[in-house]
């Protein structure tokens, strides 16, 4: 029962171009969404988040868009850099300090 789905296992983009990472969820109780980045042999690192009262949140090169009616969110990275190559996890929770449900992750490769 995957409540958070990242259907594409991998994405490869050219340096300088846009990376778009997609995520879908099924649980309508989720009201807070986060993206984590993970390098090999390290723990997930918080990247950016969005509350369900917003549809967009931007932080530097990273923008997260939320479409509540479609239960869909996406992470845009512009411009993509080789250092962005990592596994990106989408996660969602129904409230503060509550259980975080993760997607399976997507491996992003940014080619120089």
């Amino acid at each position, binding site marked *: 029962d995957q409540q958070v789905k990242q259907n594409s296992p991998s994405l490869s983009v050219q340096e300088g171009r846009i990376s778009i990472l997609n995520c879908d969820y099924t649980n309508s109780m989720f009201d*807070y969404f*986060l993206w*984590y980045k993970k390098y090999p*042999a*390290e*723990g*997930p*690192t*918080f990247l950016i*988040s969005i*509350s369900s009262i917003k549809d967009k949140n931007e932080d530097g090169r990273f923008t997260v868009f939320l479409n509540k009616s479609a239960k869909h969110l996406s992470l845009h990275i512009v411009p993509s850099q080789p250092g962005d190559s990592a596994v990106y*996890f989408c*996660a969602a*929770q129904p409230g*503060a*300090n*509550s*259980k*975080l*449900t*993760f997607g*399976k*992750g997507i491996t992003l490769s940014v080619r120089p």
Partner: protein
Amino acid sequence: DTAVSQTPKYLVTQMGNDKSIKCEQNLGHDTMYWYKQDSKKFLKIMFSYNNKELIINETVPNRFSPKSPDKAHLNLHINSLELGDSAVYFCASSGGDPAGNTIYFGEGSWLTVV
């Protein structure tokens, strides 16, 4: 200065043994977690403690017993280890931001049961 630190990072042990993974956070957070990343790469919550009290306990075998001596520590003890326990275990904490949402992870403990 690591915010969430867990030890050991790598652990290889035989079936049937008992082992512990320790976790400490210096962020002043009230809530701590244990997550497990299995062979299929899913990250799933196991336990959550808030101020030393258990608040989330997912369907985890009772061979797994978390212990929180204070709100800065949450240790995971595993009895009678089985092959299927091989995974990466991540400790995490939250509570520092106003909404209390953002969860910060440790670097993980790679457990291999042989």
